[in-house]
């Protein structure tokens, strides 16, 4: 598969993966763009492009120190996105997912990457281990610890309906 064909076929999926990984669409775009620009220069030497590029995106996220501290997380957009239509049940669902995303943001990067690969990409332990360059047992441990954190932090709270008197 040529580079242009790869981009046409995989770019949207890569951007979605990077967005889920970083929790920041702008940072995701920066990372995917950087990785593809580097891959473009040595495309003919890359044996398994899909695996290579996804691993590069993950590595960039795990090691993104310099640009991460320079970037202001755009909470305003997330806040707007968190708002649903003015109906009770969908708003409640939005709150729960928003809260889950906030808890995910507190995880160490490697745990978050393992969670994303498992629950967004549906990778197996071995596949995750290959991307993160660690053993399958380490992957299981990372995911177990992450899930424990996410469950422990999930404290349901009552939702007040707009304008309803207490």
């Amino acid at each position, binding site marked *: 598969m040529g580079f242009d064909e790869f981009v046409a076929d995989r*770019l949207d999926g890569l951007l979605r993966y990077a967005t889920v990984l970083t929790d920041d669409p702008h940072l995701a775009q920066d990372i995917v*763009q950087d990785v593809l620009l580097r891959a473009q220069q040595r495309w003919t030497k890359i044996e398994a492009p899909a695996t290579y590029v996804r691993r590069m995106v993950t590595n960039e996220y795990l090691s993104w120190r310099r640009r991460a501290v320079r970037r*202001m997380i755009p909470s*305003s957009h997330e806040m707007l996105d968190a708002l649903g239509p*003015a109906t009770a049940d969908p708003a409640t669902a939005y709150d729960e997912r928003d809260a*889950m995303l906030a808890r995910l943001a507190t995880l160490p990067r490697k745990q978050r990457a393992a969670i994303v690969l498992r629950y967004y990409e549906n990778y197996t332990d071995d596949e995750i281990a290959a991307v993160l360059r660690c053993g399958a047992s380490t992957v299981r441990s990372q995911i177990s610890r992450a899930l424990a954190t996410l469950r*422990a932090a999930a404290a349901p709270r009552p939702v007040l309906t707009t304008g309803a008197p207490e």
Partner: protein
Amino acid sequence: MTQPTEHETETLLRDSLDRLAARAPDGHEVRNALARAAARRPRARLALVGAVAAVVLIAAGVAVGTRLLTSPEDVPAASPGRPVLAWSPGWLPDGFTEQYRESGPGTAPQVRRWSAGPARISLSAYSTSDPEWAQAPMRIAALPDQVVVRGRVGMVTGDVGTAAGLTWMPDDKHVLVAQVSGVPDARNVAERVADSVIARAAGIRGELHFGPLPAGLHELSTIVQGTSPGDATTEQRAADPARPSIPALRAEIVANPPGVGEAVAVRGTSGSYLAGEGTVVVRLPSGRWLAVSGQLPKDVLVAVADGIVLDAAPDYRWVGSS
């Protein structure tokens, strides 16, 4: 209240990740950047043909880069002292120091941020003239989790104990957002911060300002940040008005160079071009370093760096103060 089951957690997790994926950018910018890079590659090979050819090529590149720049009359003049935020909190928890201010022309968001270790509190202001915030009153009214801030209805989002956001409108033209993270009982802290906010402007005066910008780009924001006046830095960003939230060009002054690359002439002296990062860097007479970066041709980056207006008297006194 009981903990959710593992199955419930996993289901919510998948739903949340799917929702996050829906926020992914559309790929337009990346495709453009890849196309530009592909177009540049043959020219780089031509540069190897010989010294004479290389000189001709560079001269042509400079000419193209110059044409890509708008005239100085088309860009805002340097305006040190531009108010960064018309509001200031009258109360913050102990230990927080201000470490970030961001401002921009027009309806650009204006942000101030205080930190205490990993804990952060930010106060952001948006204009209802910005289409993205024009519907804020209806959105606030629609959200179930409402609070009252100085007699006006606000909304709480993302309340997870140690993080919370509070959005309200101090008047009919502006939306304020107080965001708290890494702080116990964040919701109450956000409410107390919001209640203390008053109309008191804070200024921003950094070390640089864009001169002429490449065609199609406009000044987006100026950022000053640091933990103390001694380590403060200035960064200015420009963007395509069609995608204002994505900086296409950055200029910053930093204490240390981001790297060393191909030698280029910048601001009348010898600078460096880092192809991998798309950055032109040059040492200034002050000993600090100017870095201009973006997915743009080298010659355009050099032209932008040449046009940067330096301010010898930046105001960093507020950096690191409470």
